[in-house]
């Protein structure tokens, strides 16, 4: 980006996220203004997005997690620039929306999809559907957070990968994608039934750990 033309980037510093997204949406008509708007947005959220990418990729069982985090950060940043107009502040805060984009990007990176299917990707973003708070959401107390972290660390590598893969992709009505299910089956040379048993065993271990190390009580 031309430094001369960036001189007045600061003039947009007080713009809201939605105002910046609006300027970005006119990138075909006014590329310079769109780039200035994105520059402000980028500096506002780059640390937050990197923290998310780094943290999630640290838990991915791949040999080069930091490189994966960099790829995820890069692709998510590009998607935000291209699809910022899909953000709806009534549905979620901007960092939650960014997390949803990053999730979609990680799936693309890991699933081995060779071609970037733009229509399919755009559909995910336009859906802009963020999970509503469920009536079943419990207040997550500090002692329980620490107990959950310790419980996850106490699991075997296989149990961790199975439970985190399911947590990443399967929730409520959403099922684990077929590619990810097959990945687990192939990697551990096992059956779907055995994967379910590993998941169930891991949940049992987590439950026992949390109950004995926090104020959580399970009613049978």
């Amino acid at each position, binding site marked *: 980006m031309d430094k001369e033309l960036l001189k007045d980037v600061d003039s947009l510093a007080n713009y809201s996220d939605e105002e910046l997204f609006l300027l970005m949406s006119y990138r075909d008509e006014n590329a310079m203004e769109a780039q200035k708007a*994105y520059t402000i947005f980028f500096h506002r959220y780059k640390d937050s997005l990197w923290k998310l990418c780094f943290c*999630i990729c640290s838990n991915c069982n791949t040999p080069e997690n930091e490189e994966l985090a960099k790829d995820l950060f890069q692709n998510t940043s590009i998607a935000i620039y291209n699809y910022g107009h899909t953000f709806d502040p009534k549905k*979620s805060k901007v960092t939650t929306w960014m997390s949803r984009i990053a*999730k979609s990007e990680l799936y693309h990176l890991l699933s081995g999809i*060779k071609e970037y299917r733009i229509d399919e990707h755009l559909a995910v973003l336009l859906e802009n559907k963020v999970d509503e*708070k469920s009536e*079943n959401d419990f207040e997550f107390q500090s002692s329980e957070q620490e107990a959950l972290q310790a419980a996850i660390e106490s699991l075997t590598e296989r149990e961790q990968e199975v439970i*985190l893969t399911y947590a990443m992709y399967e929730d409520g009505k959403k099922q684990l994608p077929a590619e990810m299910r097959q990945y687990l089956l192939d990697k551990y040379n096992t059956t779907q039934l055995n994967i379910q048993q590993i998941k169930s065993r891991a949940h049992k271990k987590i439950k026992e750990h949390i109950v004995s190390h926090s104020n959580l009580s*399970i009613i049978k």
Partner: protein
Amino acid sequence: MKKITEMHDAEFEHYVNNGLKSLGYAFPETDDQMSVFEKKVGTQPLPKEFQTPDFVFNNERKVRSISYQNQLNEVAESNWAIAARDGKDLPNEILNQMKKDKENARSKKDGAAK
């Protein structure tokens, strides 16, 4: 006096998933999960190459089409290596697994070539 949270057994999986998303083991998907994540998880230094957004304007998307495939091949090769070290009298289950690994690797290789 400490507050005791009570829940039914059937709700526990949902509770764990909510916790995993709040602590950054999986992507936060609600504002509440994101708020816990932002508060609880520490920052990481941003790599130097991302100090400016120029890479965005150059539209330099990354593609990583083979990382999982490599991992699967490594697992299959590992099974072969273990079997080779054990020598001649291999149990049927290992022979069957070796055959399955070989077929999987071949079919995926063929699929990738198409």
